[in-house]
């Protein structure tokens, strides 16, 4: 356990230093530095005070993976090829989305000590929170990558498409964070509503089983278009696990959906931001 812990900490430090290196090589940009600093502090803060600290960033998704893997393989009997990777990839994307969105809910309250006291571009707070979640995602994705080598998955040229899908996911998450934080200004109950909604969404996002947008069953096809999360997970599995190109229609649809959603959220944030600080 001790040696696994040491390896994980070394891995975490390596990822952190790589990101720092990339940022220091960029031309001096206070805004980028500020967003990175806010994200780093936010990420650090999540694991402050706990005995295992940063190791939780790995244990949490791995723990969920083993539980769901056990249920779907031994109790339900999934026939999906390469199911372990299929599930893990779906889960890390889902955790990325759900945790970021939840933090977005009360971001104006948790960051009020900054927003009220120092002049800052409000959107930077959201960028930083997203970046903080992305650090967590990077840890999980590293574990996925190691696991995919272990399971003998061929690294296909389609892997180059992955960044496009990841950016799509990040845009949608950012939009969701902003929208939830705006709704939370007016309706505090949204926290409880969101907890139920996100549980429902998890089962409709193709985390545990493939949802086919080309299915003859219109209900299944419709589910694939419910949120971009479903389509992004489906396309990511196609390019990373199965070495296929992605479904172009779904890809375009998800990008347009995420961008429109993001701009609508931004519009509402600009309209209600003044009220947000007064009400919080």
């Amino acid at each position, binding site marked *: 356990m001790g040696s696994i812990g040491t390896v994980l900490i070394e891995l975490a430090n390596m990822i952190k230093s790589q990101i720092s290196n990339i940022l220091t090589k960029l031309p*001096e940009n*206070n805004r980028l*530095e500020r967003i990175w*600093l*806010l994200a780093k*502090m936010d990420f650090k803060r999540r694991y402050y005070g706990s005995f295992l600290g940063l190791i939780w960033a790995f244990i949490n998704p791995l723990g969920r993976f083993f539980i769901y893997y056990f249920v779907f393989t031994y109790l339900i009997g999934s026939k999906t090829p390469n199911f372990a990777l299929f599930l893990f990839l779906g889960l890390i994307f889902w955790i990325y989305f759900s945790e970021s969105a939840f933090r977005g809910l009360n971001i104006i309250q948790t960051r009020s000590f*900054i927003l009220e006291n*120092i002049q800052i571009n409000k959107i930077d707070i959201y960028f930083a929170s997203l970046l903080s979640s992305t650090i967590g995602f990077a840890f999980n994705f590293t574990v996925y990558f190691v696991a995919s080598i272990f399971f003998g998955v061929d690294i296909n040229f389609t892997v180059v498409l992955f960044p496009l899908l990841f950016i799509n996911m990040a845009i949608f998450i950012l939009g969701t964070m902003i929208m939830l934080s705006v709704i939370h200004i007016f309706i505090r109950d949204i926290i409880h509503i969101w907890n139920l909604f996100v549980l429902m969404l998890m089962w409709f996002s193709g985390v545990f089983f493939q949802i086919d947008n080309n299915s003859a069953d219109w209900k299944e096809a419709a589910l694939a278009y419910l949120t971009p999360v479903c389509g992004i997970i489906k396309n990511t599995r196609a390019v990373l696990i199965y070495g296929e190109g992605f479904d172009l229609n779904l890809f375009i649809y998800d990008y347009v959906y995420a961008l429109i959603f993001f701009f609508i959220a931004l519009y509402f944030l600009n309209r209600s931001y003044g009220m947000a*600080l*007064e009400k919080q």
Partner: protein
Amino acid sequence: MKSKTEVHKDQVPAVNWKERETVIKLENVSKTFSIIDGAPTMAGQLSAFFSKKSHRKIEALKNINLEIKKGEFFGIIGHNGSGKSTLLRLMAGTYQPNPGGKVYRKGNFMRLSLGIGFDTELTAHENIFLNASILGLSMKQIRERHDLILHMAGLEEYKHTKVKFFSTGMISRLKFAIAVHAEAEIFFMDEFFGGVGDLQFKQLSESIFKESIVKGRTIIHVSHTLPTIREHCQRVLLLHRGEMVALGTPDEVIPQYRKLMKQ
């Protein structure tokens, strides 16, 4: 009795304020808060929402017109509830004025109040980086000034202590030191100097106030402490029930405030 290092406003260089750039301008600024009274239960909230009797409007500020120049030490005085802190929050952009009112502000700012204003789960060292970065310093600049900030705040020994363990005085000193070294252009100080720091820190603060005019650092100071207002402010605004009662030099405005206090 004044200490030797104490600096009176008369000792600072003469300035032609008319020629100075305006950094804060308020035009027809009013602020009304809408409040719904009701018990914190679902039934209480629902009945309050639909009952007109539960809806109240509080006019915190009425038609404020004001200009503050770069480098000015501007005081705001008035009774409790006169609208001083609301005015400061409007200037800082935390509150929005009623429709028709305009708030213009030029320059980055830091609001200094006796609250927390820091991430209490982070250490002094981390909060210095976070706050100074938001104020616009690069990492390189922060690293260069980091020790000076800790030294000014007298917190060298508490560099890696979480801010939640700090006293109010320690937090205030740290905030002030960050604001000074990160070169915030506007300081919004809300009752900030009541009991903050020892004599040495106060003397240091006063010398900083003196150089503010030269450096173009604007200070807007809300306070009940008249000696501080008299000592440093070039102009003072007296607020009463949300209205501007007087605007002028401390010698003109403080007697009016005293008169109001007696009423």
